[in-house]
């Protein structure tokens, strides 16, 4: 990729941002040679969170539609690809192609119902929760996917990495999710600078004004939900083949939806770097807490989460825009606040 196109990718004309991106990319590409297995798994979690955060950010950060039920799309992606693999021996990439229409259709139904009937704001958020919860309880009673007993993917001990079937060691999964995160980043950058991106921002800032200016708001909100759902479904496919077990109680849990939201909001909502930075901050925080707890010898269930909650509270209170926007200004990557 030429320096010029990299510059365009960064979001503005700052040279520093290109350097930063390049450094980050090199560090991430080289990571498996440097870090141990534990840190590699942590990096996989970070990239997974960055990917889902990026996907969620399209809906909320770009188009201003607050979804609190994104676990639905990830869960559908996970279950569709896992069922195809377990019952029909169909690989995850074909499974992904099958999962996308399912997730997109679901997103389209929710979007159509909500936007046509004027369900917005908090009401829209709760509608998305309702659909995710509906799916959770539904899948918990669905015999085809083994209901609450859980769906397990066969694990083979393979000597070589099989990317086509997503069977292999953590390093392979690392590069798969790294590639996906880069792709999502590039896609979001392209979307943001396209006509659609500008329409979304107009809708986010003032929907009535956008409509008055001739933006087909209904159609573009639908695009946002559908693109976001499609991307999120890939995260589900990855989840299924990485963990090899699926329980509706976990996959569709509202906790998963909240985890997807935390990264972009902590990092900086509506920005390209926010979801990535937020993923590093949050997962880093959680793992640091783990390490500290283990070092101190404190083994009380819930103690880690309490600290996590308190840190979250402090960040939200202290940094209303998230971590990235003030950091970017400090580093001189974006122009000062108007």
């Amino acid at each position: 990729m030429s320096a010029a196109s990299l510059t365009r990718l960064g979001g503005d004309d700052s040279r520093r941002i290109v350097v930063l991106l390049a450094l980050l990319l090199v560090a991430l590409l080289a990571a498996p040679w440097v870090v141990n297995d534990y840190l590699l798994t942590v990096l996989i979690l970070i990239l997974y969170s960055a990917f889902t955060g990026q996907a969620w950010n399209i809906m909320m950060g770009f188009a201003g539609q607050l979804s609190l039920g994104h676990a639905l799309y990830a869960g559908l992606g996970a279950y569709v690809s896992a069922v195809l693999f377990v019952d029909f021996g169909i690989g995850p990439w074909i499974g992904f192609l099958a999962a996308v229409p399912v997730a997109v259709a679901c997103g389209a139904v929710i979007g159509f119902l909500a936007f046509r009937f004027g369900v917005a704001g908090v009401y829209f958020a709760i509608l998305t929760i309702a659909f995710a919860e509906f799916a959770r309880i539904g899948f918990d009673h669905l015999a085809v996917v083994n209901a609450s007993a859980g769906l397990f993917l066969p694990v083979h001990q393979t000597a070589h990495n099989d990317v086509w079937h997503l069977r292999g060691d953590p390093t392979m999964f690392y590069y798969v999710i790294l590639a996906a995160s880069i792709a999502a980043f590039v896609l979001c950058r392209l979307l943001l600078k396209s006509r659609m991106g500008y329409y979304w921002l107009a809708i986010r800032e003032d929907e009535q004004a956008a409509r008055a200016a001739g933006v087909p708001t209904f159609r573009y909100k639908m695009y946002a939900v559908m693109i976001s759902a499609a991307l999120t479904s890939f995260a589900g496919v990855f989840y299924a083949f990485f963990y090899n077990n699926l329980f509706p109680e976990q996959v569709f849990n509202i906790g998963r939806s909240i985890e997807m939201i935390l990264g972009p909001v902590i990092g900086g909502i509506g920005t390209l770097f926010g979801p990535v930075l937020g993923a590093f901050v949050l997962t880093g925080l959680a793992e640091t807490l783990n390490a500290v707890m283990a070092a101190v010898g404190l083994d009380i269930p819930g103690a880690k989460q309490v600290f996590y909650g308190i840190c979250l509270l402090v960040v939200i209170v202290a940094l209303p825009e998230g971590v990235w926007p003030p950091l970017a200004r400090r580093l001189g990557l974006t122009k000062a606040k108007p």
Partner: protein
Amino acid sequence: MPVDVYLNVVVAGILTGLVYGLMALGLSVIFGVVRVVNFAHGEMMSIAMYLAVVLFSAFGLDPLLMLVPIAAVMFAFGYALQAGLINPFITRPEHSQFLLIVALAIIIVNALLIVFGPDAQTVQTSYAYDSFQLGPVLVDASKAYAGGAAIAFAAALFAFFRFSRVGTAIRACADNYTGALVIGLDVKHLYALTFALGAACVGAAGSMMTLIVDVTPVLGPTYTLLAFVIVITGGLGSMAGALLGGILIGLTEALAGLMFTPSAKSMFAFAILVLVLLFRPQGLLGQRLS
């Protein structure tokens, strides 16, 4: 199945629904005035439930008698929360408020887990297995007392908002924020008071709920969702709607548990929520927001 089985379940569902309604009333009051969605509502209720459990197991105090003291404690907790933490967030965007309260909810659930452990705790009153025979219907005594107390508490709250000067001032804040500021009302104080009243509702409801269910730390998120379903079904901001929604959802859950399987009962509650959002987004008794 004989008819009286259905009748018993319907009555039990309505009585449980009244307690649900009181819980949801708290959420509705907070949203109606402060315009903040309390995503830690169920978690706050589980604090109240553990207070009731501790008071019962340590001192043998009946949750029904402790209803008012527990509501008072939650009132103070709610006031401090709104005055200290949420008031500065009033002007922030929804997702920011959401995250603040979610962080709070995470802290509450896990603090309860640390203190009380994951095992279920129960309150065994002397009347736990009593029941009244009303014609063909057998009414569980605990549920009857809980439902009655919920009605009394809700009635007191209605009266407060309708007839007291402070209640009128709070309604003024809800109707016109700027207007309330202009005529010199201390809006921050009134907001804190409103949040405190909402918390008192969950205090009372939680205390009564210990007569009906076992208490575990993970109940919090479940009740938060349930409170949402009820409040939106009844109409966000409508006090009568919250009670009506509570009864409707209590009834739906009870009947779904009887006719299908108890574990799938909340699916029907969510189905009702989706239908209401689509065909009457303002809720059964709510007024259309502009």
